[in-house]
């Protein structure tokens, strides 16, 4: 083993470009796979939290605006604990030099408190405008700063905590802001509802009743959200797996090709080593040590890049804003990429071992060749 190290050290110092090329490929593959996994874990975490949010919640969007007096019947439905009417719209929001389309929901402040409670947050938001965490990040918003959206403007009373759910993407506005704009409460009608069920068992009956009584555009209910989440996770996983596998296969292909060319180019040198009395395992090790070093340091560099750059900054690439996300992604990515690279390494070791053992040194030591 000592002689393998001695030999490999000299080889590496004189063939830096090749080792660096190996390293670069491994780093590129690690980072690409990390990016895919980071995105997948982000989506699946968000979906799990959204599912939690909707554990006994039904959100309804109507085809047209409905007056409040026509919504009181909802409260009388069997299984409804409470309901909150709301006006949902998408506006272009502006804050300083930042702007973007944001889903805005005008509603009672109590609804925001209740929604946060569903996700184990106990918070009593101040003011009239409550920005979801991701909305605040997207627009670089802080509490007390002015925000304008559509015909409205006001001061952000509260930036809601990061819940990991779809709640983070909504800008909640106290209904009083809309009433002021409309002139009077009498002029206000609603295009949506949040309904809290006593338990999930009442989901079907409430949903059916809503379809019977109102012109419903869309309903998000516990089972529908669960179904949607499952589908979304599956699609995201498939996409991540596909692109990761593609990257790994490409990386593997390039590395194998390089190793093959390297082996072909070093047959004579390996034959000399055999002629000088080097044992087969030592020859294989001398050949593999530079590769091990490149692969493991590539994995290490890839992991560091993943931890400090890919996971924190991939939001910047995907969504346009920065956010630090989870150790889960890092661990999962590290192990997925690490295991795959180890399997790859094992395959390479087996192939090289077979090749070296099958080498006929005299073919390369003869002067004629």
């Amino acid at each position: 083993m000592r002689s393998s190290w001695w030999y490999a050290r000299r080889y590496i110092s004189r063939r830096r470009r090749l080792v660096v090329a190996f390293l670069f490929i491994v780093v590129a593959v690690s980072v690409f796979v990390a990016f895919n996994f980071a995105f997948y874990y982000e989506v699946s975490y968000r979906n799990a939290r959204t599912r939690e949010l909707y554990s006994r919640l039904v959100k309804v969007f109507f085809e047209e605006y409905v007056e409040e007096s026509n919504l009181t019947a909802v409260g009388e439905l069997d299984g409804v604990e409470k309901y909150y009417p709301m006006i949902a719209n998408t506006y272009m929001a502006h804050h300083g030099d930042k702007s973007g389309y944001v889903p805005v929901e005008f509603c009672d402040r109590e609804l925001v408190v209740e929604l946060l409670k569903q996700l184990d947050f106990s918070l009593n938001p101040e003011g009239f405008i409550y920005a979801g965490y991701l909305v605040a990040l997207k627009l670089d918003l802080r509490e007390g700063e002015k925000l304008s959206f559509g015909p409205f403007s006001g001061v952000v009373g509260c930036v809601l905590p990061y819940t990991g759910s779809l709640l983070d993407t909504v800008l909640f506005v106290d209904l009083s802001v809309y009433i002021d704009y409309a002139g009077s409460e009498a002029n206000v009608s609603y295009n949506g509802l949040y309904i809290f069920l006593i338990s999930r068992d009442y989901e079907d009956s409430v949903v059916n009743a809503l379809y019977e009584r109102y012109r419903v555009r869309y309903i998000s209910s516990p089972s529908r959200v669960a179904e949607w989440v499952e589908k979304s996770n599956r699609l995201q996983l498939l996409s991540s797996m596909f692109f990761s596998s593609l990257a790994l296969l490409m990386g593997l292909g390039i590395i194998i090709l390089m190793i093959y060319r390297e082996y072909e180019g070093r047959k004579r040198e390996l034959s000399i080593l055999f002629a000088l009395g080097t044992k087969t395992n030592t020859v294989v090790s001398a050949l593999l040590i530079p590769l091990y070093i490149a692969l493991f340091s590539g994995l290490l560099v890839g992991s560091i890049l993943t931890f400090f750059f890919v996971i924190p900054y991939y939001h910047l690439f995907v969504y346009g804003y920065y956010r630090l996300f989870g150790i889960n992604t890092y661990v999962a990515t590290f192990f997925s990429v690490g295991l795959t690279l180890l399997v790859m390494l094992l395959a390479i070791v087996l192939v090289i071992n077979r090749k070296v053992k099958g080498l006929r040194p005299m073919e390369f030591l003869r002067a004629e060749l």
Partner: protein
Amino acid sequence: MSAINDNLVRLNNVTKIYGFRRVLDSISMNVHRGEFLIVVGPSGSGKTTLLGIIAGLETPDEGEIYFEGRRVSDMNVDELAEYRNKHIGLIFQNYNLIPHLTALENVMLPMIIAGLRESKAKRKALMLLKQFGVGDKAMSYPNELSGGEQQRVAVARALANDPSLILADEPTANLDRENEEVIMEFLSRIVSEGRTVILVTHKEYLCDYASRVYRLVDGRLVEV
């Protein structure tokens, strides 16, 4: 010492066949300790194959090779490697130095393989390089050396582990007359120090250096 004990290498009816061609045909010979044995023969007559078989780098199709009374074909792969490392020094026509190692490192290599400490290997390698007149080229890479210098480094490498047998395959074929003489003198000196040299060549005039000469014709060995 008896004649049998003096036998360093013994070949017994060794045959090697490539395809339909018998490259070596029932070759038997004894090589004594301290001998300078030269095998002459034209290109393609099987000289290199003969050395490859003695070195355990090729296996004969028939027959046996004994080294110091031990049958080489009974050795496993690792024993063969150790046999080459400790007992055999190989010199080739095209030098076969490792291109990414310096002259010094090339000479150190067999000693490192044998498990010698780097510092000791370095000291001995430097001494050998000086002995063969290339001490000042220790840090040069093979491509920075002339053919004669490369072959001197190769001879130094062959002697690194003090082997009892040197196998030289056309060691002067690529050299000019002056360097050829130098290398042959070195080999004669090695023999005078008690080592055994088997040299194969197509150059008849080199036979003057030999203590015994064999001629290899059509795979058959004839003592001259």
